[in-house]
């Protein structure tokens, strides 16, 4: 996994609540067997009209936000399906940080597995950042220090220490868990007392 440490870039504001994963990456693009190449379809129905022409008004189609590296959005970002194609599409577009007042659980988890940093801030701050975003300013994020700086303003954010550690070092959960293989082995040995545990064959 790509590590995440510091990030400076343009921030795009999409001031809507409940932005769902169907909106982030619609179903027709879930047929892929790859993780890459989804960036051009990010927010497909907001970015392209029915004839596949760019919708000029949409923020990610306008300069300088077409170069955005960060999105600021309303409550409950990433609700809906579990598709990890959502963070893949964001990342492939070049976005590796989302700022919101709240995130849906599965999306929030999926971000950390892909080197995307979801930042939770209170409504007032999110509104402030959103307003600054509209001026096309850059924002600097420092994960180690848990802070972001925009227009000389500094905001602190909270993050789970283990997740922070994994992001900073680009650590893969699976590798970490497999270091504990023995513990899993011994848990499984105890399962033999549950004689119903293993399914019968199909």
């Amino acid at each position, binding site marked *: 996994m790509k590590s995440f440490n510091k990030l400076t870039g343009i921030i795009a504001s999409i001031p809507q609540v409940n932005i769902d994963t169907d909106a982030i990456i619609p179903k027709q693009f879930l*047929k*892929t*067997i790859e993780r890459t190449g989804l960036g051009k379809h990010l927010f497909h129905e907001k970015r392209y009209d029915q004839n596949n022409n760019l919708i000029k008004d949409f923020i990610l189609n306008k300069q300088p936000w077409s170069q955005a590296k960060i999105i600021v959005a309303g409550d*409950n970002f990433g609700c809906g399906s579990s598709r990890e194609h959502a963070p893949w599409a964001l990342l492939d577009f070049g976005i590796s940080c989302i700022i919101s007042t709240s995130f849906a659980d*599965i999306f929030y988890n999926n971000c950390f597995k892909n080197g995307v940093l979801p930042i939770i801030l209170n409504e007032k701050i999110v509104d402030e950042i959103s307003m600054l975003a509209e001026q096309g300013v850059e924002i600097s994020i420092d994960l180690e220090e848990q802070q972001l700086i925009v227009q000389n303003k500094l905001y602190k954010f909270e993050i789970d220490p283990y997740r922070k550690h994994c992001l900073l070092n680009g650590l893969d959960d699976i590798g970490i868990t497999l270091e504990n293989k023995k513990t899993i082995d011994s848990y499984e040995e105890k399962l033999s007392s*549950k004689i119903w545990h293993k399914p019968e*064959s199909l």
Partner: protein
Amino acid sequence: MKKTLFDKIWEQHVVEERQDGSSLIYIDRHLVHEVTSPQAFEGLRISNRVLRRPDLTLAVADHNVPTENRINGIKDNIARIQVETLEKNVKEFKVPYIPLMDSRQGIVHVIGPEQGFTLPGCTMVCGDSHTSTHGAFGALAFGIGTSEVEHVFATQTLIQKKPKTMLINVSGSLSIGVTAKDIALAIIKNLGTSGGTGYVLEYSGDAISDLTIEGRMTLCNMSIEAGARAGLIAPDAKTYEYIKNKPMSPKGEAYDKALEAWKLLPSDEGAVFDKVINIEASLLEPHLTWGTSPEDVLSINDVVPNPKDIDKENLRNAMQDSLDYMGLKPGQALTDIKIDKVFIGSCTNSRIEDLREAAAVAKGRKVADGVHAMVVPGSGLIKIQAEKEGVADILIEAGFDWREPGCSMCLGMNPDQLKPQERCASTSNRNFRGRQGRDGRTHLVSPGMAAAAAISGHFVDVRKFN
């Protein structure tokens, strides 16, 4: 200490508590489908890892599959490659698989219980948010992303933070024509789409005990629409009866032993939940959604809401946007809304009971002119049963389009889609913009309400048909 159903399952599955407060949790059952698994299998290959417990895994293709002329294969190249990739992967990693042309094929959350793969007290995951469905059996079941799918493949465990618990007590009894779907919609209206975030829901109360297993699955299925990753219902005699003699469920002595363990699962009297909500079932009416979020719920005899009544500017604008997208006017009676399409199916409402409910309304009647109504059974076995019982004949005679099983228009990955501005009465679970087809308009309802709308050509109170 008194424990909840959730506490008991959680404790039994902690492999290790980690320093940061999260736990490594053992996973007893893993369901796999074609859309969220290819990158996970690929990850195993790249890292040269084995799939630890193929015997606890079950795979099926459902999201992408055609629901007609299946014998001719999948026309869409990319979709076909995805299904073929699953077939190749299950072979390589020796995962039990139900092939597309097998009569047991169906939606992953329908076939899990149907095959006896889902059991009370187990932990269950799938790369799909509606895994919450299996909570109907008292299983701790939740959706995961593809990286976590890979984690379960490689380790049969997951790293999880212990969620909070919420008790949703539904007392009293439902009136005729009001169903589990209406309870689900009422709860989502009450909690909002993020009210359940961070919680595992437990549904209890007389109205829940009265539900059939199918109804319980419908209810648990939509827990995720309230933001909760899992919803649970304590197992009882109905649960045990349902599981008995299913192909993959325990037999003989194993069943007896399992039963002893399952009976200990229900929450202890007086166990404490982090939050409690009470709902009175007798007050519920048939519901439908008017907007583009599952929390936009009204009773059938209500009118379309007015953005002017909303104080907060961003919420007012959001409501206006939804109304514009849905092509609705404030104050319009819901029963005046005309429909173009009907979709009866999805892991929410595609089981035999749902089809019976639709057939009871459709019997001896005809689908209205200009309405295309389709029924997509949740599995091949349900389809066969409905055909045997005469449910299929009733629906076909009434003019419904009777299809092959799969996810179909619930998300429209296959050709079953709404055209722009088409309006659909759908028994599925999400009314997000574009979910059923670009610019399509989805209203979520119960199977009876969907059938009643099909017959009338507009939304109508299903109780008028009883």
